[in-house]
């Protein structure tokens, strides 16, 4: 998994990953990019995405003029040394076609006043081509609104009446409720426009930490895999709802948001009952994440939790699988996490879950195979002794069966690639066992079928050759073949015959089966093999009988799966 950028710090976490029923995502840094970007503007006609509109361009050009960044227009990142907000503004302005170079050369800056505690705005003074000085102002919307007496209306300045002021204040609140960082932009004619409160309002810019691309599909993939997706955020409920809608977090049904006020004060049972029905935990402080993880666990869920901050550590530790972001994550978070996503991309968790489920599936296959084949050997020995027949196999032959034809295909089964539907089925129940009573019964029946094939081989062989090494050779060959072919039965699982499921190729299984088969076929032709195994060169007829009986055993076991499927 290393190559997908997943670092597993605790080995058994891989298996637990396959059982995950609920994944809690920390919004900031996990679902979002953890950097600011310009997402909205408001130039007086409602919230809009920034575009090439002339009014948008004028707004953003002025915002960039009033930038605290030391701009290098020719650089790839023209505001590399500035804060995230400033960089986002410059980037946003460039994206809608504002020419930074022209901006700086035609109207060079004469003076710049930064913000202070009493003046939450910045003022840039520049000289135009006609020598007249203009101001570009950017800052907190309420404060900047107080400096304005007019509002820009497509280049012209109109007086700012009370109704207009109220509308602008409401626009600011509306942006704030969306969880945006909001700045107002204004321009002024003449150097004294700020002091005289004669600025002209241009509009609002809203910045946010955007969602990572592809998150909606990733959330859908987790849900398809039977894992509920939960978002944990410090945002208020309305903002959180808007994000959840964007992510389609609830898969189309109404989104349930819990704004718990004080989670610690809720009693544990109540919180567990609520948590099990919640899509979004809003207004959560980092220290409350632990309570959320525990509540989900109290509700009986197997919980994965993502996080990156020091504050997330307790929750990451408490979760069944704690997932830390590798790139931006703190050392503390990484240290307690079970899984570290080096690429910071939660989509990698999909692979991890698939891997976890595949590992369990493969353990299941190998166990299924080993139990059935061993039972078949016991069956052969017990049945022939009960029937008063001579021992069908020598001790060395039994050892050979156990060491080679059992073990090699099991190794092949252990590296079976994940099934195509591994992420399209619900997680395995936590209390499920490898060898349930029903499974054991099926293994017993499969073992009996193989036993029957071997005994039939023995019967045919004794008929043809008497109780001779030749007969034992045929019995052994039949059983080895039946067992090797059974590897394919075990590979297909219990639910459908092997020909109905399309599976990804598993060359290792083919190699182990063919290799063992070749060994079994070649040994009788080598003196050392004959001496060691006590076998003889089989006739073509014997080989045919062994092949037919081995094939029949596989067929019988697969047909039984069909019957189970239809009943």
């Amino acid at each position, binding site marked *: 998994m290393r190559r997908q950028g997943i670092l597993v710090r605790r080995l058994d976490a891989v298996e637990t990953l396959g059982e995950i029923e609920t994944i809690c995502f920390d919004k900031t840094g996990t679902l979002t990019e953890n950097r600011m970007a310009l997402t909205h503007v408001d130039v007086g006609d409602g919230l809009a995405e920034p575009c090439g509109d002339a009014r948008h361009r004028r707004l953003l050009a002025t915002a960039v003029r009033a930038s605290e960044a030391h701009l290098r227009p020719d650089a790839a990142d023209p505001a590399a040394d500035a804060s995230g907000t400033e960089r986002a503004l410059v980037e946003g302005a460039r994206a809608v076609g504002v020419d930074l170079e022209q901006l700086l050369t035609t109207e060079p800056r004469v003076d710049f006043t930064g913000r202070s505690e009493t003046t939450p705005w910045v003022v840039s003074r520049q000289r135009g081509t006609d020598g007249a000085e203009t101001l570009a102002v950017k800052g907190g919307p309420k404060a900047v609104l107080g400096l304005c007496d007019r509002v820009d209306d497509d280049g012209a300045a109109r007086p700012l009446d009370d109704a207009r002021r109220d509308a602008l204040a409401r626009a600011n609140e509306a942006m704030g409720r*969306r969880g945006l960082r909001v700045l107002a932009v204004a321009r002024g004619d003449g150097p004294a426009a700020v002091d005289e409160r004669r600025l002209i309002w241009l509009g609002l810019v809203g910045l946010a930490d955007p969602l990572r691309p592809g998150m909606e599909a990733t959330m859908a993939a987790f849900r398809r895999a039977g894992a509920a997706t939960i978002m944990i955020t410090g945002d*208020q409920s*309305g903002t959180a709802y808007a994000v959840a809608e964007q992510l389609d977090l609830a898969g189309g049904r*109404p989104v349930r*948001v819990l*704004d718990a*006020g*004080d989670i610690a004060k809720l009693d544990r049972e*109540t919180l567990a009952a609520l948590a099990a029905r919640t899509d979004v935990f809003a207004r959560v402080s980092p220290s409350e994440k632990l309570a959320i993880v525990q509540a989900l666990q109290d509700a009986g869920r197997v919980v994965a939790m993502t996080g990156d901050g020091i504050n997330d550590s307790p929750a990451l530790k408490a979760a069944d699988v704690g997932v830390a972001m590798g790139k931006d994550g703190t050392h503390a978070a990484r240290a307690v996490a079970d899984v570290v996503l080096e690429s910071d991309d939660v989509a990698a968790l999909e692979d991890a879950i698939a891997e976890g489920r595949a590992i369990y599936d493969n353990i299941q296959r190998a166990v299924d195979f080993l139990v059935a084949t061993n039972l078949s050997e016991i069956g052969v020995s017990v049945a022939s002794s009960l029937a008063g027949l001579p021992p069908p196999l020598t001790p060395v032959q039994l050892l050979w069966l156990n060491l080679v034809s059992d073990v090699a295909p099991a190794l092949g089964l252990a590296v079976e690639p994940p099934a195509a539907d591994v992420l399209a089925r619900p997680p395995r129940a936590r209390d499920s066992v490898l060898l349930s009573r029903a499974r054991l019964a099926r293994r017993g029946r499969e073992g009996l079928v193989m036993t029957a094939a071997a005994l039939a081989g023995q019967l045919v062989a004794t008929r043809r050759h008497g109780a001779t090494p030749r007969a034992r050779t045929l019995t052994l060959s039949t059983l080895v073949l039946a067992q090797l072919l059974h590897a394919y039965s075990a590979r297909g699982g219990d639910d459908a015959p092997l020909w109905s499921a399309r599976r990804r190729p598993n060359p290792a299984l083919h190699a182990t089966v063919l290799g063992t088969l070749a060994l079994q076929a070649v040994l009788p032709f080598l003196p050392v093999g004959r001496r060691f195994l006590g076998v003889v060169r089989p006739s073509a007829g014997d080989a045919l009988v062994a092949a037919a009986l081995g094939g029949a055993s596989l067929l019988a076991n697969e047909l039984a799966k069909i019957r189970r499927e239809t009943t």
Partner: protein
Amino acid sequence: MRPSFVHTAESVTAAHPDKLCDRISDAVVDAYLDADPLARVSAECVLANGIIFLAARFASEAVLDLGEIARRATLDVGYGAPELDPRQLSVMTTFGTLAASSRLARLDVDADTVPAGQLVTAFGFACDETRALMPLPIWLAHRVARALHAAARDRRVPGLSPDAVAQVAIRYAGGAPAEIDAVAVEAADWRGDGARTRGFEDAILAEVVRPALAAAELPLAREAALLVNPTGPPEPGGPFRHTGLTGRKLAVDTYGGSARHAGSALSGKDPWRIDRSASYAARWAAKLVVAAGLARRCEVQLSYRTDRARPTSVEVQTFATGERDDADIAGRLAERLDLRPAALARDLGLAGPARVRFAERAAYGQVGGGAPVPGWESTSAASRLSD
């Protein structure tokens, strides 16, 4: 002449969990309309164990902090530390969307183009028992409940919880209220049992109940019972003690059982919901009839059909107090009042910039209230009904 009988009406304070749910639901409607005058919204609220379950369905771009709205409403009705700190309340919000097409294009639409959208029969009532043209029992119950709430807020009765219930039983004789037969108040002492003394009940009686009853200008019956916590004091705790549900106090919202009312909740619905506006409209019409002197008691029944703007029937019952016969009065109402949903939203002040604040009217009767007089309590259109 009707024989003597007793009618009991109950009111609860704004802090009663059922009423708090109504207020929260209406605060959500108000907030959406503030942010987006054309928003469609419906909000329902359940309150249990100090957890607010708030289901909001809306067609609007507005993004609102519903948790904060719910806590604000809880604070507004008088809860606070130490009894109940609204900040501790958990709010479980279920956000759903309504079809965007349900939104109106603008406020000044042609009222004929806005059908009722629902099959509804609503009732309204008015009578001359009080100046507000409301039945006396519920009117008096509201006065007592208001007085209880005010006393709790001003801390005039130490320990009085803002969550209280007031019941008033009025004896009628000859069809008119004759005397106050009984009053019962249920009010918790949030200081708990330790500090509680009999003085608590006496203080409520002296400070709250008796002054409130004086307003009725009605004698107390010779054997009148004025009871405070007759079955023992309730446990304090408001929403932590008992549950609340939007729309469960319809008799409190309307006529206290003195007249019929429709079964659907009023609170939590936007002005375009005919099951809300028709109830106000029916009260408006009934009050106009009494105010115009056409009858002393009047019940108006309005029926709307999903696909039509105008009501499919306007029925009037004046209980043999009418100056004209009922059919004549009903005809005047149908002809002279504009009862189409969009017209009601506009004329009764339900929508638009000067609209009523629903949250402020959630308690003490959604009809019959004043200050400021809402559109459906205004009698300025009474002259339209005269000859």
